[in-house]
């Protein structure tokens, strides 16, 4: 692992010299390409107050990525957006946590497929470390798809619902 880190460091330094724009982003891009080549599932990289942790979501078994791993899921969401009609908007998770469809196990779900939502309708709760985050629809529309089941882990930037705007 330390040998790999050294390689990354060298590359990062080179990349930084090339582009003065956003050095951190360049490092992330580099790390991702290294992960691709080596087929790595997880990588951690630390240097002078910068910490980058990346983990592929496949086979992660619900393991949450570290806080700064936002780059990968966001990129995914963007590629999905291209194939989608503009009246369909996803509701995405603002944080790593557990996805709950109802306020308690006995209660009815906040939202169902086919149900209409208003911008301030609560559609689910995402919980992390006992922080209950009520997620609102933020659009007028109808739920067309729910990507997750109650109690499933959710990652930062992951799509939870698909809403057809009305």
């Amino acid at each position, binding site marked *: 692992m330390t040998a790999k880190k050294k390689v990354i460091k060298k590359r990062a330094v080179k990349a930084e010299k090339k582009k003065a724009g956003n050095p951190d982003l360049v490092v992330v891009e580099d790390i991702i390409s290294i992960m691709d080549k080596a087929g790595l599932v997880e990588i951690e990289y630390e240097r002078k107050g910068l910490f980058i942790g990346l983990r592929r979501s496949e086979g992660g078994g619900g393991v*949450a990525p570290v806080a700064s791993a936002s780059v990968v899921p966001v990129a995914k969401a963007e590629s999905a957006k291209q194939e989608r009609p503009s009246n369909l908007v996803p509701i995405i998770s*603002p*944080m790593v946590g557990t996805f709950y469809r109802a*306020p308690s*196990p006995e209660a009815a779900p906040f939202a169902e497929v086919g149900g209409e939502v208003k911008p301030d309708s609560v559609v689910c709760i995402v919980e992390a470390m*006992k*922080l*209950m*985050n009520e997620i609102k629809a933020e659009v007028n529309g109808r739920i067309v798809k729910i990507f997750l089941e109650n*109690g499933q882990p959710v990652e930062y930037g992951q799509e939870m619902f698909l809403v057809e705007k009305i």
Partner: protein
Amino acid sequence: MQKAAGEKILELLAAQAGAYVSGQALAQRFKVSRTFIWKQLAKLRDAGYKISSARKKGYCLLRPVDPLLPRLITEHLRTRKLGRKIVCYPLVTSTMDVAAELIAKGEREGTVVAAESQLRGRGRQGREWSSAHGMGLWLSVILEPRVSPLLASRLTLTAASAMAEAVEAVCDVSPQVKWPNDLYLDGRKLAGVLTEMSGEMDIVRHLVLGMGINVNSKAAEFPSTLRNQATSIYMVTGRHTDRRVLLAAFLRYFERYYSRLKKGDLQGMLAGWRQREMTLGRKVVVKRPRQELKGVAVNLGEDGALIVRRRDGVEERVYCGDVIIDGERQTPNVKRRMSNVESRKHGR
């Protein structure tokens, strides 16, 4: 004195520290009729206050001796912002609901909602939280952290840590913390934290921090389902604690950590936390809705995650789920609970 009449009478009774005040004295003091006083006292009794009346002596507040009234709490406050406005209720469904309503009406950061009693105090995922009248602190704090939701989830840890310090300072006992939000004393649950917020992608505008701590409760006041899992400061120390002093201390410690957290600084809090964390170094089972994780809790991450080392040596960062210390009872049936009480007795 129409609306706040009850509160003013209560304040006066509380100031007598167990002595009687005559109905006539009360009437004169507030320039109202004795009938009016009598009606107000009846309302207070309905709200759960135990007020005794004796012929020729008058009235006396028996329980709680430390009613939560804004003026009496403010006396002890040493904060800049938190708790500078306090709203107190004898009875609410849940202080979390009241706080959410206040936010909808434009309430700003720092306001504290406290109640003597809750009809439906709640824990995570709608679990029951017992809140007997006047025996604990059931409160919600309105916050506007303006940090990313990623940082906000650490608030729960911060609040639990601050309460542990407050209990240590005021009551001279040291609660342990159980990741992520419970306080334990002598192996039983003393307090819990719950944070609720409305989701926004980038920044948390409003957040309600809920805290429940059993202060002066006696064993018999817990519902039988909780009796052997819960404790109070009184049950451990045998001493009565002024809840208003404890509340003020909590707000002071919490405010200090909170202002650091807003700047992203968690170090001080984490150091204190690690000292008190009861799961560290122990075998744990993390119960999650869809899968279980078994291993040893080895550390707390910089981001507040519990780091659990599995048997195969892989370390997982845990953000969600119920942590059960191996060997701890989970949902014991009545028989097992009884036997547990017996073994405790023999053990001491």
